[in-house]
């Protein structure tokens, strides 16, 4: 891997990008997909809920940010019944009004997108009715059912599935949330978004680039809960000047960023840092599929902090407003959201060649 560097630019087909993620990365996937739908051909959502889900019910607390946190935990992750979970129709209406206000791209861009949406029957972190609401949300916004691959019958826990036998059991609900499922879920996602892709490469030909995220995040990535470095996989043909098919943005979930450190009793457990490192980047199969299909893969990285400066100890992407300047009017979902803008800036840089 190259030493820390600035993110280079390549020749890339326009508006054929895609995005996928797990858990908080899946919530962020939906947000980014909606915010910049004119750029994307599709999205992969593993265990993620619908757009602006935390704004389902404002009443639980007088403090707006506390209400959003309660929504996140109990309506958007573990609702007691499907009826107390997110309402797809209401949230689709919210998306339409957000688009009408010009804060995200027009909803009509979604109509020709292809989606992969997955929920495991053993997932105890983000329950299946929430993910079902994500499918219903997209249907409500006009994505035809024929373009949505919805899978809800595998006994999987909260995880991205791989064919690596050393990963956790399929039904596990524990970090690093990378479970053995006998197949590479990343390949299934890319095959759904881009029909007719070639099989994955056996050997990688390209290069994994490490780059500083700060220039894309207003100068200090940590202040918006983003890690010092992000990563990108560049297939050899693209490095040699071929036009890339597009950029696929792969978003990790909570506790999966390369810099994640477990917090034990409120303290960073640096003496026993689990060796997750860049497993999400190198072992989940994205790069091998990208390599044979001239796709660039961008791996932005979130980071955690358990202080009052950044109370996001698990290094999750912001889908409940923790980066909001004004908690009463959180902006984690629009083109102007700090994390969305940072990732968009990375995409723009990659495509600048």
């Amino acid at each position, binding site marked *: 891997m190259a030493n820390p560097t600035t993110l280079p630019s390549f020749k890339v087909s326009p508006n054929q990008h895609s995005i996928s993620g797990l858990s908080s990365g899946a919530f962020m996937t939906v947000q980014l997909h909606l915010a910049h739908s004119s750029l994307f051909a599709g999205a992969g959502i593993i265990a993620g809920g619908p757009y602006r889900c935390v704004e389902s019910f404002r009443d639980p607390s007088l403090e707006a*940010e506390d209400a959003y946190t309660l929504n996140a935990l*109990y309506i958007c992750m573990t609702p007691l019944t499907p009826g107390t979970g997110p309402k797809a129709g209401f949230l689709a209406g919210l998306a339409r009004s957000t688009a009408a206000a010009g804060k995200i791209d027009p909803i009509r861009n979604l109509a020709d997108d292809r989606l992969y949406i997955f929920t495991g029957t053993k997932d105890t972190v983000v329950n299946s009715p929430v993910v079902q609401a994500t499918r219903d949300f997209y249907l409500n916004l006009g994505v035809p059912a024929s373009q949505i691959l919805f899978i809800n019958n595998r006994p999987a826990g909260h995880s991205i599935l791989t064919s690596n036998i050393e990963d956790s059991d399929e039904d596990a609900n524990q970090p690093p949330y990378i479970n053995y499922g006998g197949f590479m879920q990343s390949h299934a996602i890319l095959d759904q978004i881009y029909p007719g892709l070639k099989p994955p490469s056996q050997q990688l030909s390209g290069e994994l680039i490490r780059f500083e995220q700060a220039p894309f995040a207003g100068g200090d990535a940590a202040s918006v809960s983003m890690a010092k470095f992000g990563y990108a996989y560049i297939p050899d043909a693209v490095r040699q000047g071929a036009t890339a098919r597009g950029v696929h943005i792969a978003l990790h979930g909570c506790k999966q960023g390369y810099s994640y450190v477990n917090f034990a009793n409120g303290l960073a457990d640096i003496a026993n840092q689990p060796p997750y490192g860049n497993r999400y980047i190198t072992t989940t199969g994205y790069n091998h599929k990208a390599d044979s299909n001239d796709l660039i893969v961008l791996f932005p990285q979130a980071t955690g902090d358990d202080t009052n*400066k950044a109370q996001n100890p698990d290094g999750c992407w912001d889908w409940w407003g923790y980066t909001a300047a004004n908690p009463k009017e959180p902006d984690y979902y629009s083109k102007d959201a700090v994390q969305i803008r940072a990732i968009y800036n990375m995409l723009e840089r990659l495509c600048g060649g």
Partner: protein
Amino acid sequence: MRRLTGRKGDPSMSNPSLTVAASVTAQPQPRTHLAPVDHAEKAIALQGEWGKRLSSNVAATAQLLMLGMDRETWGELLEIGASAQERLAALQQTWLQQWVGWVQYADQIKGANTMAKFADRESNIAAQWSQLLGTQAASLIGLEENLEVAYSYWLSEKLAAKKRALIE
């Protein structure tokens, strides 16, 4: 999963390109002493929120009863209760497994063959006990909070639907 409370209301966030320096310099310096008053204030504030949720749930329940409970409404209510019961049973099962694990660890004290090892094991047993109690209490409170929010959300949806039906 929490929020960036320290930056709440920071006006520099209205121009995110200026965020970094401003928000970092705006951070209050950490104190070097404990402030029991802060802990008490926070506990009282959270209990106040809990009390408000409880009283508005009572008032909304009364309203719903006045508007009439049909079979579907009773069914949904029972479903919420059954789901909470199911999750409590799952939690209790997990707790039981955790305590069995703790007893098994404590039972291995005979293997401590030096004073240092003995002290280490005793300390671990106490720490594990404390950690188990803490996490189990937090998960029980989490379930209680979930039930409270779910019931409140369900009530608000039901009341809104009943009121709409009355107008139509």
